């Protein structure tokens, strides 16, 4: 099966005594090995929730899932705890935004990587540490032998993030999930980490899903980009198509309002209003209240994803 990951009609709802949040409302996409899918969205779009659902990281008692997530053919939403433990870390690895909290502060970096290796592959401690050192070299951490003995707080932000990538790759996963891993990094460090991820992806033929709110970052790493809004994918296209000719009014608005070179002196085209409250399932298109091109039939029924080309999908009634 060439499909590494297949997500179909995923719905994720959080229920608390105070309120219900429909975080993800029907997301579908597929990913092959060696491919990077960038998920672009703002806060509240559901992008992080989608990602974390692939590993079922949300607290079980508050979360309701429906739909299907198939990892190499196995249904994640029906996995028992042993299969899930095998999935997490070994078949699918994840890196997070805040490397400081991803590591345990009372153990050295070497100990944590070695522990993961031993847990999933049963290697001896010496072998595991050897492998940990190799991994630190792989992610270009200088003086890896010494860094094995370093504690997380003794490393700089960029180095911690590289160490986290090393941890993620320690058990040869086939899928890497990245949840805004460079958002908290300085610009000069961010580009280093992005290039590293690209290089590692090529070298290990990984499938990568990269969640970000920064268009530039998405363009740098992705082969395809999916734009999310209010819990749905509103546009899915190859990276060049998305940048050259976005079709969904939200994607277009997003690109137009992102400040970059040469916009000095012009008024920014801001998307008016704010994202909707996710407590209710919308009756029509979620973007309708803010859309320049809104039509009467936009509010009657939620639009479906239509193909406007081989690999271009748009969730809008206006799409050809």
């Amino acid at each position: 099966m060439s499909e590494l990951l297949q997500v179909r009609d995923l719905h994720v709802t959080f229920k608390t005594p105070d309120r219900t949040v429909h975080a993800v409302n029907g997301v579908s996409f597929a990913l092959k090995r060696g491919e990077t899918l960038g998920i672009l969205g703002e806060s509240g779009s559901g992008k992080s929730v989608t990602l974390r659902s692939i590993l079922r990281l949300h607290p079980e008692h508050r979360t309701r899932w429906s739909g299907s997530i198939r990892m190499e053919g196995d249904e994640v939403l029906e996995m028992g705890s042993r299969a899930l433990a095998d999935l997490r870390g070994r078949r699918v690895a994840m890196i997070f935004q805040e490397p400081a909290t991803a590591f345990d502060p009372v153990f050295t970096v070497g100990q944590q990587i070695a522990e993961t290796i031993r847990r999933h592959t049963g290697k001896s401690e010496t072998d595991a540490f050897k492998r940990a050192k190799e991994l630190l070299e792989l992610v270009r951490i200088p003086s890896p032998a010494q860094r094995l003995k370093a504690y997380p707080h003794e490393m700089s932000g960029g180095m911690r993030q590289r160490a986290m990538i090393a941890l993620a790759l320690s058990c040869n996963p086939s899928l890497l999930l990245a949840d805004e891993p460079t958002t908290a990094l300085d610009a000069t460090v961010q580009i280093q980490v992005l290039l590293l991820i690209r290089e590692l992806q090529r070298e290990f033929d990984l499938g990568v899903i990269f969640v970000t709110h920064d268009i530039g970052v998405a363009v740098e790493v992705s082969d395809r980009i999916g734009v999310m809004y209010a819990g749905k994918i509103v546009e899915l296209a190859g990276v060049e198509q998305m940048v050259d000719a976005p079709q969904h009014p939200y994607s277009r608005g997003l690109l137009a309002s992102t400040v970059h070179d040469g916009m000095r002196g012009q008024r920014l085209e801001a998307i008016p209003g704010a994202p909707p409250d996710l407590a209710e399932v919308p009756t029509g298109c979620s973007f309708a209240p803010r859309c320049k091109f809104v039509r009467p039939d936009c509010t009657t029924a939620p639009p479906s994803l239509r193909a406007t080309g081989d690999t271009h999908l748009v969730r809008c009634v206006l799409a050809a």
Partner: protein
Amino acid sequence: MAIQTPSLDLGAGLVQATASSASRGYWQSVARRLRRDPVTLICAGTLILIVAASLAAPWLGLADPYKTSMIRRLLPLGSPNYLLGTDELGRDMLARLIYGGRLSLFMGVTPVVCALLIGGLLGITAGFVGGRTNMLIMRVMDVFYAFPSVLLAISLSGAMGAGTENTLLSLTLVFIPPVCRVSESVTTQVRGFDFVDAARASGASTLTIVRVHVLGNVLGPILVYATSLISVAIILAAGLSFLGLGVKPPEPEWGLMLNTLRQAIYVNPVLAALPGVMIFITSICFNLMSDGLRAAMDVKA
């Protein structure tokens, strides 16, 4: 004077963001959460009952708590006219317990209130001013804090002598350092928030800033901590009285009663344990209420 921007209702869709459309202040939402918490309500109800009974003691038609009777010593529970029996000197237990509540509660709550005022003031000052003042205040507190509270209470009481006033004084002194420490910690935290910097940047006086911005955010956690101290205070006061360092006989006070009823353990254990039961109930109610208060205040609105 509004700016000419294309017609956008910037609040569109966001006003419904909260569960109810009525804007709710922090304390109102805390009160709302407390009302829905069954444990806190039960404890509050129990305490109100105990306090009310203690306050209304003279009018409840109880027997005289000081009247002794050598014939009717250590009558068991359920004796005619003596619902809860009598103590080792023949005094009515029910009356002693209810009247005892007055002193025990007073000895529990008063030191905490005093410590709250003094320790709170010192802690907030130390936290807000920082620097050398902070160091001075906190290191002095550390010296007292180094002693376990029971030991400190006993030493102070022992040095000053027994009696209600001395007990109050020593308990207050015992509680000032922990309250001060909590206040300082919370105040330092709030002091670091941007909105306090913004208030300083607006040129308001320090007192105004503390009053408007700091107090509202700091009183909550301090109050929670103080309520949890009340249960400790009640037990400490009772303990001191038990040791003979607190209230002097013949005053009814639960701790003292535990002491004097010691000999009755072999004769009527239930009777001897009754004051302990009262201490337990009161103390645990304060404790659970403090927990409930903390949980209600913890949610970020």
